[in-house]
């Protein structure tokens, strides 16, 4: 008991320390430039650019910020990057071609959508053992509930969300959403999921207890991803160079924010004060204040930033 309390104090202390002195970092996959840009978000300066072949697209960062995981759908592998040095620790083959990726809370397992093989793949990073589960045509984005128990996977060409028990690695449910669901985001409470339906120009709001759609948000043209920050919902609209912003409590629209050309990957800062969006056509990462909705900063990235996934992690 005492030990727990003590480690709790140390944990809180280190949290405070990291928040007070160090900002977050962004891990931006540049699919056309074929690299992973590591950007210090306090200065909005590129710290490292790690060459990664195979048209890197999806990205996840371990909770401790030490490792970044990058999918290369055309190279058919996942690259494990030491975030401090940019050293490539591992290259893990994935049969068809990996796209979306999330990492388990402990950092031991990866969950990956195999876009070309229509599968969800679990990879144990220590043993490299794999489990595979059929999802349906063109699985794209995915998200893990904060308790690590449930995965939501977008079965893009089925227009469905697949609920997967992460431990048993079995499908527990499927839910019809809009046309071509892509990015999937789950809130910090694990109560709701948000799914960007690219071809319907909508976002499905899903109640995770009932596993039913609770509402449909109408956004601008070709929504790609969803970020949650400061009790707001931010949706990147690829064809409208914009973010649609909603109040997460009552789901009412707040504003539309103009961003760069072809916004794709979108992610909140760890403190929820800022939203970052990668603009694929204009090769920029923009930082937007989640409350004032003002553009705080912009920075150049390598060519074709996709940043598909939760691309923000803590600086070491």
């Amino acid at each position: 008991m005492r030990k727990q309390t003590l480690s709790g104090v140390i944990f809180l202390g280190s949290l405070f320390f990291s928040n007070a002195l160090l900002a977050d970092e962004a891990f931006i996959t540049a699919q056309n430039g074929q690299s992973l840009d590591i950007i210090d978000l306090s200065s909005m300066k590129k710290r490292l650019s790690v060459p990664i072949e195979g048209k890197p697209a999806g990205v996840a960062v371990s909770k401790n910020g030490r490792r970044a995981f990058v999918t290369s759908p055309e190279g058919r592998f996942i690259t494990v990057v030491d975030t401090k040095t940019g050293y490539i620790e591992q290259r893990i083959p994935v049969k068809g071609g990996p796209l979306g990726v999330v990492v388990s809370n402990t950092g031991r397992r990866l969950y990956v959508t195999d876009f070309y093989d229509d599968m969800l793949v679990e990879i144990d990073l220590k043993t490299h053992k794999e489990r595979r589960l059929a999802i349906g045509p063109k699985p794209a984005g995915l998200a893990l509930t904060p308790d690590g128990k449930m995965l939501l996977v977008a079965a893009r060409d089925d227009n469905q969300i697949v609920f997967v028990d992460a431990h048993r690695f079995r499908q527990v449910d499927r839910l019809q959403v809009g046309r071509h669901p892509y990015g999937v985001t789950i809130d910090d409470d694990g109560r709701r999921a948000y799914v960007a339906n690219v071809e319907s120009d909508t976002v499905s709001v899903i109640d995770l207890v009932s596993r039913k759609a609770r509402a449909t948000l109408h956004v601008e043209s070709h929504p790609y991803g969803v970020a949650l920050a400061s009790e707001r919902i931010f949706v990147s609209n690829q064809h409208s160079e914009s973010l649609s912003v909603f109040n997460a409590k009552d789901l009412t629209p707040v504003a539309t924010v103009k961003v760069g050309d072809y916004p794709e990957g979108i992610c909140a800062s760890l403190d929820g004060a800022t939203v970052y969006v990668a603009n694929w056509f204009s090769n920029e990462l923009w930082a937007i204040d989640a409350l004032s909705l003002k553009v705080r900063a912009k920075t150049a990235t390598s060519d074709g930033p996709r940043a598909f996934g939760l691309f923000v992690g803590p600086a070491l």
Partner: protein
Amino acid sequence: MMCAKFFKKLVVAVMLLTPPCAAFAAHGASPLKVVEEIRVDAPIEKVWAVVDDFAHPVSTYSVERIETSGNNVPDQAERRLFLKDGVTITEVLTKRDGERFMIGVHRKTDNIQLLPAVNYTSLITLRPVDQGHSVIEWKARFYRGYPNNNPPPELNDDVAVAAVKKLIIGELAALKNYIEKLAGR
């Protein structure tokens, strides 16, 4: 191995025989990009007047006739270019921004015989150089012609990029030529 090769050939054959499919058809995981620009000896307003006229495109294709609808309104305006041999290209205006001097055009009819790329979308933006000169920037987003992994060599990423690049360089040269003639240079 034989079987996989045969299957791929079959897929390509079916793709070539199937009529051009609807908007945003099946495509891969890796969008491709081409960005080209050209300098035009004309003021930006003159260039914009031509580029913004969605119903009357300056085209490098040998167009026999054009049908248009939707009155130059984004997401409504469409143009159908009728080429020789019964080939048609249908394009929709996705964006029109007079302040940024930008239009967006999406090709609804994928036809890998005509262009070995699918889901082809262009963003054309003008910027002034000085009072008498402008630059047209043409950015395209598309996917290779083969939607799955392990594409055949004739439908891979490099082939798609090279074909789109060639198309855009040609379209830009045609635009420059047309606009400079109009401007009497």
